[in-house]
């Protein structure tokens, strides 16, 4: 209840702010500093040498103050309801093997650093893997429990909880070695114009970030805060859900969550954010 009222007032606040921006120059990320729990989180980083971007900015820097502030305090951050539930889930026995996550991983803090390196190559499978794949492999192979759906509340909560362990660490995803072809495929997808509106991801997030597109302040489309709690969704959503929404907005048929295409796109986007801090779970409007 408390949370609902807060979100409502935040949304009203955002509208008021955006209205006052019309007709005003507002062409870049703002200068706000993200501090959570007394810890400074890097929302700006030097672009890697081969980057098409001059400087990297987290999506947080493009949000209105009201949305930003929800992410500055874990008690206000609505994503933490799901994170708390995931902590319980972590200790819950499920599946034929009679095990919980905690039986193999004594503490969820063991996963510190993991989020910052994903997606990565899985040698045994000969395929790239995301956090969702890793979690489901534990569930099916080691717990003998049912795999979670990509966008299931349990999966979102668990990816948020595990991601949180790396909060503040720099993203460092590999694009070389066996990941090179995946990365290359993701890059091609990023620059391919799709849909009736005939745009690529780059049309908005590389060439026009910092500008308003109707009521939305375009960011670089970074993924360092996912899964994010989106006020519009009223809950957490995965990286692939965001991709799907952006494709639909330009009237393109989206790929499926977990598809090779979206895994490749995730890989490419992750490397575009190398150097930014992991912010999971971020809050967006």
């Amino acid at each position, binding site marked *: 209840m408390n949370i609902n009222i807060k979100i409502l007032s935040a949304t009203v606040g955002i*509208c008021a702010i*955006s*209205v006052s921006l*019309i*007709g005003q120059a*507002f*062409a870049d990320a703002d200068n706000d500093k993200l501090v959570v729990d007394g810890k400074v989180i890097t929302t700006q980083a030097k672009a890697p040498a081969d980057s098409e971007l001059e400087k990297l900015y987290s999506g947080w820097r493009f949000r209105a103050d009201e949305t930003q502030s929800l992410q500055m305090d874990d008690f206000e951050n609505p994503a933490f309801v799901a994170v708390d539930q995931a902590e319980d889930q972590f200790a819950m026995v499920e599946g034929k093997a009679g095990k919980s996550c905690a039986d193999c991983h004594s503490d969820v803090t063991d996963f510190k650093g993991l989020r910052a390196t994903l997606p990565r190559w899985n040698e045994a499978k000969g395929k790239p893997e995301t956090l969702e794949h890793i979690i489901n492999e534990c569930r099916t192979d080691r717990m003998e429990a049912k795999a979670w759906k990509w966008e299931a509340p349990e999966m979102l909560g668990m990816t948020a909880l595990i991601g949180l362990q790396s909060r503040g660490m720099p993203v460092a995803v590999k694009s070389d070695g066996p990941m090179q072809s995946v990365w290359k495929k993701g890059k091609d997808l990023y620059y*391919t*114009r*799709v*849909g*009736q*509106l*005939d*745009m*690529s991801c780059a*049309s*908005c997030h590389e*060439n*026009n970030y910092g*500008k*308003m*597109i*109707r*009521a939305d302040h*375009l960011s670089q489309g970074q993924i360092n805060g996912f899964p994010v709690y989106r006020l519009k969704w009223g809950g957490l959503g995965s990286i692939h859900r965001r991709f799907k929404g952006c*494709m*639909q907005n*330009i*009237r*393109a*048929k989206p790929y499926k969550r977990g598809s090779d295409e979206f895994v490749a796109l995730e890989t490419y986007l992750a490397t575009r954010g190398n150097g930014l801090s992991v912010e999971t779970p971020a809050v967006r409007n």
Partner: protein
Amino acid sequence: MRLGVKTLALVVLFSATGISYAGNVGPDEVKLVDGKIAMSLTGSNGDAAKGRDIFINRKQGNCLACHVNKEISEQAFHGKVGPPLDGVAGRWDEAELRAILVNSKKVLGEETIMPSFYRLINGTRTMKKFKGKTILSAEQVEDVLAYLKTLKEE
């Protein structure tokens, strides 16, 4: 009576090339020369008031997503991806504006983010319900054009 004859003549003219709307120039038949389309797509003038609505409507022109336009100050949230359209009628003539609307890529450059509102070849993977369709109809393009022609003040 005179109008009837003209329409008939147009239908006869275009039926040979397989056009879908009687009387309208189909997206494949548009003659875009030197950044201009001289002829109305419908053979007549559009309705500026309707064009204004299409300009605003997020499911139609959605022009406000990218363009500031002072004449529509009652609407919040004007985008800034493209240039302001205040006074646009003084910068481009009618034939040029029609060409920009129909096929922005041929006038503003292949790389432009501005959609082409009346052409069939767009990005890959277009959703089924929009496949083989233009974003706006010939009538809608002429309506928006009629509205743009009223934007004379900087």
